[in-house]
């Protein structure tokens, strides 16, 4: 039953059904009118995310973007949310934001929705797939992580990785932004990043070390287009000096 449920057609049915708010073969939208809240990301932050995506988009036309960082608290979830929001604003197509940081999910808090039920409940409990819409023209869809214990995280990640989930996302959504767990703190992040079409490596100003970033880059497959976003930039170097050098 699990194998059937996790096939690409099942995933696509589930995703399409969830976005349509109708019954899907293995689930239905529990709260079709539920909406995402407005995340606490200011205009400048979203503008910078838009610029980052514009640079990344030169090499990747569409697909799945994995957002990774060496460690926690480096701004990864915020960048993932910002990327998704800016994509929704710029493109006509629907965008899916997936929280795959199963140990410490963060997107639910950002968008003011419950994390559960989410991916874990769908995989483990045969629960309906729950997607929550929001953003401009309700084209942004959030798939939260759900609730699980640490013991099951690796198995859940394994199921996602081998269930053609990313393939279904490519078929159902123009862009999918995946918020992955920290590369240097979890074993599954590297593998999941390898399944994405592009990676955005996030490092925090005056917190991430160049050594950690180097190790993180080494964990991302070489053939995966990757770009770096520096978060929490509080540099006080005057702009004119930056332009000068």
């Amino acid at each position, binding site marked *: 039953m699990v194998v059937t449920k996790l096939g690409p057609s099942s995933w696509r049915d589930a995703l399409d059904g969830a976005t349509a708010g109708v019954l899907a073969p293995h689930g239905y939208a529990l709260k079709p009118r539920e909406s995402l809240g407005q995340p606490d990301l*200011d205009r400048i932050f979203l503008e910078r995310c838009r610029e980052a995506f514009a640079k990344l988009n030169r090499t990747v036309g569409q697909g799945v973007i994995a957002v990774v960082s060496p460690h926690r608290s480096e701004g990864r979830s915020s960048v993932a949310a910002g990327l998704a929001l800016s994509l929704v604003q710029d493109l006509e197509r629907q965008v899916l934001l997936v929280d795959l940081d199963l140990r410490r999910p963060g997107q639910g808090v950002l968008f003011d929705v419950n994390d559960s039920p989410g991916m874990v409940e769908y995989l483990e409990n045969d629960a309906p797939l729950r997607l929550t819409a929001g953003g401009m023209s309700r084209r942004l869809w959030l798939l939260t992580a759900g609730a699980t214990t640490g013991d099951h995280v690796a198995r859940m990640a394994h199921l996602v990785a081998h269930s053609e989930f990313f393939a279904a996302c490519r078929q159902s959504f123009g862009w999918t932004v995946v918020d992955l767990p920290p590369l240097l703190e979890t074993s599954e992040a590297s593998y999941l990043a390898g399944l994405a079409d592009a990676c955005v490596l996030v490092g925090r100003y*005056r917190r*991430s070390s160049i050594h950690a970033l180097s190790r993180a*880059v080494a964990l991302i497959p070489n053939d995966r287009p990757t770009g770096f*976003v*520096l*978060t929490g930039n*509080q540099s*006080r170097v005057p702009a004119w000096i930056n332009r000068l050098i």
Partner: protein
Amino acid sequence: MEGWLGSLIVVVHRWLDVFFEWAMWFLIALIAIPAVTGGVALIGDRSQLVTARVWADRPVLLQAAGLANQWSNGTPSSDADALLTELVGSDWFVDQVLTDSAVGFKILGSDQKAQQRLAMRQSFKHGTIGDHVLQVSYVTDRPAVGSGLLNSVIIRLGDSIETLDSIQTTAAVGLLDSQVAEARATMQKALADATAYAAGKSLTQLLDDAHYLTLQADALAATNYYVSLDRQAHQAHLAQSALPSIRDSTFRVMDPPSVSPKQIDLRSPAIKYSMEALAGVAVLEFVIIYVIGLRDPRVRSGEEVRKKLGVPYLGSTPDLRSAA
């Protein structure tokens, strides 16, 4: 070249980033530490400045005798100042002054004497005010000792100037005397030549004789020169004999040694220590910036990641209150 330049730019940016990160504290340290150091030095400095002023001039008689230029082309005060510089540089002069002013200097050992000389030279300052005024000062925490020392310096300097004047005048007078003797001989020879030539010739003949007229003109010029030199030599002799008696007109104390209000100038300890503290803090800050810029492994710019890891830089986001 570009790689080298790019790496340099990344490092420079890191240094600038460190500087601007701590700029406020750097600035506070740069102001506060020298100010506190200078303040402490000012409070702890119990020394006082004893100052005296002396009038210096050349003897009028020497000028009248045309001997003033024998001494120097400078002003009287600069001449005295230059002489004082040389005197203070000599142990002989300093020993005399310290013997006059410091009780027990004579019985000190050679090392202690050397220390006292060094201290005296460091605390003693002199300079000119205009063409005629020489100012001497001494920094000490015992004004009475300072006054005694300055009095001794002034007296010894006056003696030295008088001695020097006397030596110079004697030499000049001797030179003048020899010149007078030479002029006298020249004059006598010219007169003798003219007289000998005129012997046996009538006045009418001599009046039309060009050679005689030349001899006569030479004798007249030699006589005038001799008379002039003789007058000058006479004046010089007068000046030489009058030197001791006219000392007060050429070198006298205008303002006797007295304690001056403490002034903060570039040589005062407060300023000196402040400048040293300023330089020290600046160097320390440069070292801090340099070391942090090179050793701190934390990322300070996306360009640095691009340069070191080869990952394209997509941009930066501002700080959010809570980065997830």
